[in-house]
């Protein structure tokens, strides 16, 4: 397969996955923001959305204050924000357009229809209902994935799509975990000083904070099913890092990447497989206690560095081979 084709497949899948992840995160924040809660926390929770995607600087160039309206505007519609939902759907469709000959016409028509429907939504943007819009985005992304699984030949093209999806997904789960824990550390002490509100905010954290995190990775019901227990930070982290059945857990993503990487193997890709194998081993032979001892933030930073290193190597080996002669 042409390297450029593989590149488009990979990014089409990554942008589709990113659009869905962003939509889910925004939807959860949007709903959580409707609950009674301290003002600082509300602002923090909007800010953290920008932190997750490392977009604070770009945001502050356009807006003065961090609030619900501005963040939603920036994360959904802003063209200059490459991670906004509109940008992601645009990039996914542009990549699909380049390689429309290599995806099934069903996949192309699904991407194209998403884009055409989005144009109509954008015209009526002022009147659009955020929840419904985000629901629509999630639905369209599910549909793309389903159409891919249901119609594509099980060959290289499908593998490159899968690799794109999984790398984006692992990256997203790790970032959410990293950021949410950091927020918790920052916010809690502020609340502690306000004696009367303490009880309220504690229960708020213990339930809604972690519940929203779970929801943002479609993990709330799964958590209930697996632990049949109160929501505790440790178990949430355990589910999202170590549970091999949870589709968005880190271990799941890495496990699924390994056979795909073996299937597209070429003469220069041994190192990538070695790094992936090491990453899998370090997840398999660890547990949540060890992670908390090391510090969750540090663990996540390490994971992100490693998965992004793998993504870079992958890109150089398969997608944009540098030298010619």
């Amino acid at each position, binding site marked *: *397969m*042409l*390297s450029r084709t593989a590149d488009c497949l990979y990014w089409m899948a990554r942008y589709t996955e990113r659009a869905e992840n962003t939509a889910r995160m925004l939807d959860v924040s949007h709903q959580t923001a409707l609950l009674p809660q301290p003002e600082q926390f509300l602002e923090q929770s909007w800010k953290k959305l920008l932190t997750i995607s490392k977009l604070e600087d770009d945001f502050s160039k356009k807006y003065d204050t961090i609030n619900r309206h501005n963040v939603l505007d920036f994360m959904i519609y802003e063209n200059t924000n490459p991670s906004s939902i509109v940008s992601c759907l645009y990039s996914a469709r542009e990549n699909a357009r380049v390689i*429309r000959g290599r995806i099934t016409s069903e996949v192309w028509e699904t991407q*194209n*229809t998403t884009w055409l429907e989005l144009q109509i939504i954008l015209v009526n943007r002022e009147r659009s209902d955020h929840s419904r819009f985000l629901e629509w985005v999630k639905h369209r992304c599910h549909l793309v994935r389903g159409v891919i699984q249901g119609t594509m030949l099980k060959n290289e093209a499908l593998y490159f799509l899968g690799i794109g999806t999984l790398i984006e997904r692992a990256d997203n789960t790790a970032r959410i975990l990293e950021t949410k824990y950091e927020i918790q550390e920052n916010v809690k002490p502020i609340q502690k000083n306000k004696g009367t509100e303490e009880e309220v905010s504690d229960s708020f954290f213990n339930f809604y904070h972690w519940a929203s995190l779970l929801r943002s990775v479609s993990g709330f019901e799964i958590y209930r099913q697996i632990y049949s227990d109160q929501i505790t930070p440790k178990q949430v982290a355990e589910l999202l890092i170590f549970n091999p059945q949870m589709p968005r857990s880190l271990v799941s993503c890495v496990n699924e990447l390994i056979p795909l990487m073996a299937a597209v193997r070429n003469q220069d890709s041994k190192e990538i497989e070695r790094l992936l194998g090491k990453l899998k081993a370090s997840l398999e032979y660890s547990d949540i206690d060890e992670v908390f001892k090391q510090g969750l933030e540090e663990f996540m930073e390490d994971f992100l560095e490693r998965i992004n290193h793998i993504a870079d190597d992958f890109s150089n080996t398969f997608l944009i*081979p540098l030298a010619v002669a």
Partner: protein
Amino acid sequence: MGLKRAEAELIFRRVGITFAVYGDDLGSERTIPFDQIPRIFSAQEWAQLETGLRQRVQALNRFIYDIYHEETIIKAGIVPAEQIFNNAQYRPEMRNVDVPRDIYAQIAGIDIVRAGAGEFYVLEDNLRVPSGVSYMVEDRKMMMRLFPDLFQAQRIAPVEHYPDLLLECLKSVKPSDVKKPNVVVLTPGMYNSAYFEHTYLALQMGVELVEGKDLYVKNEQVFMRTTHGPERVDVIYRRIDDDFLDPLAFRSDSTLGVAGLLSAYRAGNVTLANAIGTGIADDKSIYPYVPAMIEFYLGEKPILNNVPTFQCRKPEDLAYTLAHLSELVVKETHGAGGYGMLVGPAASKAEIENFRVHLKANPEKYIAQPTLALSTCPTFVEAGIAPRHIDLRPFVLSGKTVKMVPGGLTRVALKEGSLVVNSSQGGGTKDTWVLET
């Protein structure tokens, strides 16, 4: 009928059969208007047209070979030497280069109008990168979807196997030392107006669609970059103009081409379809000589007519043209796509006077032709069903043998009275039926 039209528009847009329009920011993608009333030929009339097309394309290929080799037609005094060697479309790089089977224009799109029963005129020979064939096939699919019963009631000759014929043709012109040729389609990229067609043909033939940056030349051989390392390329169906093919040989600012491609081509290690330098034969200044070419190379009487043409480089023709601007169609000799032309009967006085200035300044750049009583066909427009002017572009494939599918792209001028059918100028398309008896 209205419902069917809406349905067709919806399907075309969802499927993304669109083309880009240059210099039009709003809606850089459009669907080409599709008219659901087909244009119909009898099998008999088609057979005559087909024979004429084969004859013409064969002569044109012989001509291109000749002017890059022995130049017999010039020596015989049939085509003046300055018409060839002073023409920007003549490529000295191609002198004495041998191409497989001596075929230069593997894919030709000949624009035809019908003036009366069995009376066909050639408007233009497109021998560089003729486009539109994907619409021929898609229009047919659309018609079968919208009116299945019509296809049951008559025997309409199929056209959907065009990509198979194309692949067979491309394989048959492989470099001689190659056993199983690796064929690719070379596109300028997704912003090209015909990108949909490039993708379509690559997909239908089951070959790679490549851009210049996917290819490189090493030791006078062409390779493409793949996820499994370099892979040799043997036949390139290129949809890029000569000028942009190789920045080392032609336009150095081209980012669409492949550095060193010409050297690999001249060494015979890769076939380009169409060949470099075919533009010399479809140039409008050469067009008037085509009937003479047919007699010269094939010793046959031309079956298809040429439209009488005034060559403005000749003083007496220029004088006639200037005196009759309001009756004539004036075209740039090197132009294409309906840009930069004057349709006298439809033009305003100001437009004519404006054009007169350009014409006087550079008469050698123009030719003029009388407006033919162009055939019309019933067409579904705002007001109902009304006659509109049409032309036809059948596609002729020359490889081991000359092949074509029974049909072509019928283009229709949707504006009342308009003679310009180009999609970039608001033209539409129709399905073309050859009825078998």
